[in-house]
């Protein structure tokens, strides 16, 4: 916000114009203080306590010492490693599937108009309004053996070898992809709408084919929204609980399910803590990509 900008119609904004710069800085800090305090007390403080807990050990004398034993124990537990690799694998597959579905839909929505694209846009937003647990039970009825899909395939095509993804790893991918479509399409269409029409028209005028426009102009210009969609989807899928719990196999488990079970059902809170820290670290690396991209955009735009 530039205080020396044109006088606004709004009285409030006009008042900002009169603030001296140090007061404005103070106001800025004051405004971020509240969310910052909430973050510090409710997330960062307890999270660092947990991290500290997993990194220390009781000495026989009653003191604390640095120790990586908890982490060694995690990586020495075959089930834990299997679950971690499984979670990463499912996450990568789901994110790719989401891109493969989301990108064509967003391109279609960007470049067409009419009743059909309205309906498609609406349908792609629909999962946003459905709670995960409802979606999970609906998918069980739809995808399960003797479910609707099974019966349709049988009735229409006489297909009998239907293998239901329900309670298999594929069930998690289908469920999470369904849940993630809305956000993916929202982010990608937002990115696409920032590509100015004249640019595309110019390219067309000088004889660029649609494919060339797509590869040379659209994709480079929407790199950032692609990155944001990738990272946000990764975070949502990697930490998912409801869908993997209800649609996935009993083993291997996604980290969300595994952590909850270790904490509540197996009553092993310190192990759950280690699992959580490892999950958090992986998510942290990915969120760093997201934050970096957003900050770079701000810097470029001079905000």
């Amino acid at each position, binding site marked *: 916000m530039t205080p020396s900008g044109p006088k606004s119609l709004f009285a409030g904004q006009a008042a900002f114009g009169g603030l001296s710069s140090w007061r404005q800085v103070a106001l800025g800090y004051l405004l971020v203080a509240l969310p910052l305090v909430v973050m510090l007390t409710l997330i960062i403080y307890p999270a660092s306590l947990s991290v500290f807990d997993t990194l220390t050990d009781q000495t026989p004398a009653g003191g604390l010492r640095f120790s990586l034993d908890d982490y060694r*124990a995690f990586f020495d537990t075959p*089930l834990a490693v*299997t679950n971690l690799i499984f979670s990463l694998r499912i996450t990568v597959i789901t994110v790719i599937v989401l891109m493969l579905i989301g990108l064509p839909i967003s391109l279609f*929505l*960007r*470049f*067409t*108009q009419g009743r059909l*694209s*309205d*309906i498609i*846009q*609406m349908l792609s*937003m*629909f999962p946003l*309004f*459905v*709670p995960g*647990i*409802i979606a999970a*039970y609906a998918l*069980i009825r739809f995808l*399960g*053996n*003797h*479910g609707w899909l099974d019966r349709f395939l049988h009735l229409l095509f006489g297909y009998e070898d239907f293998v239901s993804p329900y*309670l*298999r*790893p594929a069930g998690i991918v289908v469920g999470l992809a369904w849940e993630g479509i809305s956000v993916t399409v929202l982010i990608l*269409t937002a990115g696409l*709408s920032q590509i*100015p*029409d004249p640019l*595309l*028209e110019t390219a*067309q005028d000088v004889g660029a084919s649609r494919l060339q426009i797509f590869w040379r102009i659209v994709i480079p210009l929407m790199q950032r929204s692609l990155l944001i969609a990738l990272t946000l989807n990764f975070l949502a899928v990697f930490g998912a609980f*409801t869908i993997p*719990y*209800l649609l996935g*196999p*009993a*083993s*291997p*488990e996604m980290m969300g399910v595994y952590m*909850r*079970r*270790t*904490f*509540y*059902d*197996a*009553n*092993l*809170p*310190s192990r759950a803590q280690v699992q959580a820290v490892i999950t958090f670290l992986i998510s942290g690396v990915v969120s760093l990509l997201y934050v970096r991209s957003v900050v770079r955009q701000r810097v470029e735009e001079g905000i």
Partner: protein
Amino acid sequence: MPFPSQRRIPLYLLLPLLLIAIGFNAACGAVPEAGPSAAPETVVIDVYIESDTNISDWWSNDLKPDFEATNPGYELNIIHTGGGGSGNGPIADRALAALETGDDPGADYFETFNPLRPIGAMEVGLWQEITVDNVPNLAGVIDSAMRSSTGFDIPYRGSQVLLAYNEDRLLQVLKEGGHIDADAEEVPSEFVPANWPELMTWVCAFPGEFIYPRPDTTGAGREFVTRAVFQANGLDPSRFSTEAYAAAYGSEELTADQIAEINEIYFSGAWDQLNEIEPCLYDNGTYPAGSSAETRLLVDDLVTMITIWSDQALQAKSLGLLPPNTRFIQLEDLPLVGGYASSTIPTNSSDLEGALVLANYLLSPSAQESVVRVIGGFPAISWDLLPSELLEDFNDVITDTVPSFSGSWRAAMFDGWYTFVAPDVERE
């Protein structure tokens, strides 16, 4: 070629979508009943229920009105934390935190909770000790219900897990396998398992026809696994008492060595049996999550036999949710464990007195009769204290032998099942 850059969803299209979404959310309905803006003398008791919805419905529709009518001045606020919620665990964690800071825990009564959790809660005195002095009706509670109690909980309703099978489907399976004549109309009794060894044989004689759910997701799975544990331990439920656990492992978090030891000494035989039948289970070991996902397999004609809670079975059958010729059986050598659901009361409850009044009410003959009539459970007090016509009405399901398996062993059992039974299924 035009490039429309601005897109808007027409409002008339969005509106029905929004209504549907709101409808879905309302149907999901995890909204706790609002605390009443009661007259000042009314004491509101916050009751947290993590059991399945048949139990929370029973509380809302039967127990609440009856309790409030017989105990004026008290009002129950029922909060359901189960069915997709995270259960009573987080509420207990909050109560423990509140105990340390001296705050109001916002919870007065846990419909079911294991007082050994959260870790350390027992030592700092989170749970109210229950004696005949503060809950007089405890005197009427039978021994088998008290056996699993720690003295800091109120066992108030028993239930058992049954085997439910679809007789029509079994008949079909037997005919297709050439076990009986094509015109037979009844299932010969030798094809219905009566004890554990017969059940194990049955499961592999009819591959894909039996399933039990993951043990930590519903009692129907938990009690089946527990029964396997008993089988591997000489059918001796007394090995798994609260005292035996406390003596061997205390109340601290288990170490890796202890976990290995428990599995070695107590559970390995059970894991062997369960692994042996695994290839014979439905869809090569599809362990569903939760009782409704499991019951669906029976309802949708995918399996012949499942494990099911007695109370849910009776309720589902009376609602016509199960296949018409569904039969229930109990193992004769040692029943599938049921056990007693136990309530706990946090000592820092702001209405401790009211919570104890509620506990006493739950052990009264009228509430215990409701346990039998409404939810098809077993009373925690002696049948002698209940009306004699009740005994006649429910003669078929009465058993004094609901063997119990102390809650303290469960955590290690769940962990063991996930470590030794679930992983070796290939489900790509």
